[in-house]
């Protein structure tokens, strides 16, 4: 797809990081891939104390006077923009190994326990396969057939017959991720953890070329457990403004009134006006919208009032940072397999890229 002057969305990155495990607090594998992708493209790269990957990349042309003292905004360079996407995904953590070899777990991040029974997982750094035990219909008592097993009654089964046997494979504290492999057909892509590997891949695609303004790219940690990594990173980075890249939930739901079913997969990036963590900065949002119109990138609204993102914490860090969120709309996030439309990912790259150009000219 033509990004009209913007970098191309790198689908290979999405595939690699979607397949990699990275539950909140255990983002190493994702970070390693992104480090490789970013290393040659950026001016500096570090892992901050929380574990977020922070890359600094200067604009394409270095105007004279680039060596001016830090702190003072240098004329003509535009604002220092923090682009942020979180690396972590929702998953499980093993909390106990039982005598019979079954694993007890707790959920990390928001997973609806009703979707868990029967699901396949990969556990720990060795990607040990496991399934969440569910009785076959033959054995379910008639009275229980319409019931969902409570989250605390669920267990992971790795096929072990005893605690000893199980502990050879996994140990308490290890994470489990949905056992889903990335695939695609037409413009649809299927995979796990598109929230927020979609945003991570959009960000990685953007920095393949020198941006129009100074950019600090942050791939943050622990978003799903309370927006933690971005809060710390924002304080260190101290940007002039921030745009958070997300993979957000589609509103398409059979049965609800059509006017309620937004945003849609395949209809362009979703813009946030307000969610539980953020009131988007009005002027920054306006810049993004104007840019979208100018470059004919279709956009839609994310439903107000629901969800929360890293932007909420970045916005109130330090003395305040104007912040906005641009999302790739995905179906079935926080579940074993999500869908996205790869055209939306390219549109997000295009929109952010041109927004950075707009900001160089028009901000503050």
């Amino acid at each position, binding site marked *: 797809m033509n990004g009209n002057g913007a970098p191309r969305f790198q689908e290979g990155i999405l595939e690699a990081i979607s397949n990699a495990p990275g539950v909140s607090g255990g983002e190493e594998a994702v970070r390693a891939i992104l480090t490789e992708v970013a290393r040659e493209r950026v001016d500096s790269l570090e892992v901050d104390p929380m574990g977020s990957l922070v890359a600094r990349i200067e604009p394409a042309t270095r105007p004279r006077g680039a060596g001016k003292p830090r702190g003072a905004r240098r004329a003509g360079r535009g604002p220092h923009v923090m682009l942020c996407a979180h690396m972590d995904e929702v998953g499980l953590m093993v909390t106990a190994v039982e005598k019979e070899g079954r694993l007890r777990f707790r959920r990390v991040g928001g997973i609806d326990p009703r979707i868990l029974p029967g699901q396949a997982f990969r556990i720990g750094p060795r990607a040990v396969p496991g399934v969440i035990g569910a009785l076959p219909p033959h054995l379910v008592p008639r009275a229980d057939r319409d019931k969902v097993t409570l989250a605390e009654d669920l267990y992971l089964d790795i096929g072990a017959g005893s605690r000893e046997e199980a502990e050879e494979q996994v140990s308490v504290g290890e994470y489990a991720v949905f056992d889903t492999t990335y695939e695609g057909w037409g413009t649809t892509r299927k995979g796990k953890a598109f929230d927020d590997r979609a945003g991570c891949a959009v960000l990685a695609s953007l920095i393949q070329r020198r941006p129009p303004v100074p950019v600090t790219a942050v791939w943050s940690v622990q978003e799903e457990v309370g927006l933690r990594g971005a809060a710390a990173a924002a304080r260190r980075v101290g940007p002039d403004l921030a745009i958070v890249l997300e993979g957000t939930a589609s509103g398409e739901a059979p049965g609800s009134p059509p006017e309620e079913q937004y945003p849609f997969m395949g209809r362009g990036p979703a813009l946030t*006006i307000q969610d539980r963590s953020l009131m988007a900065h009005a002027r920054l949002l306006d810049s993004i919208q104007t840019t979208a119109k100018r470059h004919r990138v279709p956009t839609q609204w994310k439903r107000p009032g629901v969800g929360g993102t890293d932007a909420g914490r970045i916005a109130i860090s330090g003395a*305040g940072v104007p912040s906005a969120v641009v999302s790739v709309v995905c179906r079935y996030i926080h579940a074993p397999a999500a869908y996205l439309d790869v055209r939306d990912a390219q549109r997000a790259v295009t929109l952010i890229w041109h927004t950075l150009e707009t900001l160089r000219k028009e901000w503050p």
Partner: protein
Amino acid sequence: MAVSRSSHLDSLLPALSEAYGPPGRETGIRAALKRALKGAGLVREDALGNLHLHIAGKGPRLLLTAHMDAPGLIVTRVDPSGLARVSILGQTSAVDWVGATVTLDGTARGVVGWDRPKDPKETREIEPEALYLETGLRQRQAPKRIEVGTVGALLDRAERLGELWHGGNLDNRAGCAAILAAVRGTRGIRSDLHVVFSAQSDLGARGAATSAFGIDPDVAVVLDVAFVGESRGPGDIALGKGPCLGLKEEGYLPHPAALALVKRAAKAARVPHQWLIRESGGSDARAVRASRSGVPTALVAIPARRPGGPRVLIHASDLEETVKLLRGIVTTPYTGEKGSR
């Protein structure tokens, strides 16, 4: 002169109360306050939308802050029937919106209704999902004119009702008016005074957190309103008994030295006061108190009553006593406290 002071409030309060200023979109109230602050000192707006006034002076850096935002409604969709569905921005319940007149970004007006239960005997609580905005626009026009994300604010001008002020958005436009009245033309300010009309307070003290961080004050006084029924102190608070001094909120305790400053000022100015103890919920005080490595902070609250519906009541004498107290606070030297914060 007491006379000029109260007449001052008589014109200020109605104007401030009707200004548009839902959390994160405080455009109208910010403009109104800017106009009122002409000539008072250095005025600026920051990244979160807070409005700052700096009256440079010698002495400790004093932050005096009141939130200027008031709850709003945000449009989530427009029904085929032309009714706009909304969700609430801020800490109010749906029942307080029913019957309110709302302005939508200055582009249209609406009246808030709710889906009544089919059975009139059913007495259930009003859920936010049941609220809608009737805009009077034609059925086909409404979805085009009213976009998702449009933010509505209560359109209501405060008026006198005997000894009381009666009106929408008085939480916390009353506080804003009191600060304006207290700092304009006041001589003998004994501090480097930073006044902040904070934004997004109703979404969790967001503006207060960032402005306190930016200013890094030596001492801070937060001004808000408190509602009758909220205090679990030595008896509830009441209208007409003077401003409340906050002793406790959720996640907040006053700093002794900051509280001492307020008490000294109250005593010197002969301002009666009452105590406020909130077990749940709170003001901007918590965010200011916990900013950076901790800011000595006191909370002053104007007593208010919510009779039901969108409007609130405050007593005119409480407002005037609050102005006197604030004037005392900015003219009383802050001596800090020996020992730890």
